[in-house]
């Protein structure tokens, strides 16, 4: 039997589902060894990218809050200063991605949005590490950090595009006029 859901309930389900996806991907990411702290793939950003075509800005930010919280629970960093880095990176990245996603489809694709978000996240985390931990030495990790961020954000953008353009689930959740179909 199919139950008819209101639009609000559907969106709430969607946020919860995407939030759970973030947590799952954070767990996968947690199992991948990292050579240097903060050098991450950012797998958990995939649901955020995908949500841009389905949710409004406030809902995307709510999803980001869920992601940051879920990631902190999975990584066990909730009450450490690493949490600050994660939160600063995620929030700045989401704000920039929301801004860039307002550009028309002929100007930008999910890849460009992903790169912008990655850059914002990296910049915010570098600024924070310069402020809190390394001081000027943060500059030495900047090139590597930025390069890794560029590569992973491009890969995530490509995966998100492939997903959005092929997934029937996304097609229904984003509606007939859904972006990146």
């Amino acid at each position, binding site marked *: 039997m199919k139950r008819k859901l209101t639009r609000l309930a559907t969106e709430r389900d969607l946020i919860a589902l995407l939030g759970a996806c973030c947590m799952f991907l954070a767990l996968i990411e947690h199992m991948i060894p990292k050579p240097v702290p903060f050098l991450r793939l950012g797998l958990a950003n995939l649901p955020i990218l995908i949500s841009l075509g389905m949710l409004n800005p406030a809902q995307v930010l709510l999803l980001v809050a869920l992601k940051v919280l879920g990631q902190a629970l999975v990584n066990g960093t909730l009450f450490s200063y690493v949490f600050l880095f994660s939160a600063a990176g995620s929030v700045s990245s989401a704000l920039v991605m929301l801004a860039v996603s307002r550009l028309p489809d002929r100007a930008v694709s999910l890849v460009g949005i992903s790169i912008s978000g990655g850059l914002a996240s990296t910049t915010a985390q570098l600024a924070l590490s310069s402020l809190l931990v390394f001081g000027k030495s943060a*500059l030495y990790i900047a090139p590597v950090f930025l390069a890794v961020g560029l590569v992973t954000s491009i890969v995530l953008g490509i995966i998100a595009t492939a997903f959005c353009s092929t997934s029937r689930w996304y097609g229904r959740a984003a509606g007939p006029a859904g972006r990146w179909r």
Partner: protein
Amino acid sequence: MIGSIHELSGDDRMKLRFSYLRPFDFFAALLVLGLIVIAAVVAYSGGGGGTLLHVQTPTGEFLYDLNRDAHLQFEGPIGIMHVEIADGAARVISSPCREQICVNSRPMTSGGDWTACLPNRVFLEVTGKDETEVDAFSY
């Protein structure tokens, strides 16, 4: 309602030719590449940041960026020492000590340069980028 996971896969419409890339995508990528180059040049060339003035005083240790001009004051047992950082060099401009060795020593510019005021128990040293690099990665 949200579909099952079996509906997530699709193959016929997969766009593998990257024809979906748009002008802003390239702009963003080039922007990041530019930033990487700039950051690498600044970080790994000698003249850039990373050279720090390390100051040890009876009241604590302090680090200052040698590339940022500043006027600093440090308090020791016999009074206040004034240090100036200008044009990538640090020098003691006044000290309450009798000998004034620290004031007369040459400005400190690169890693390993140091001066000290023993009566006032202030030690100043420039730490090179090699040391800071180790700090950065041994975290």
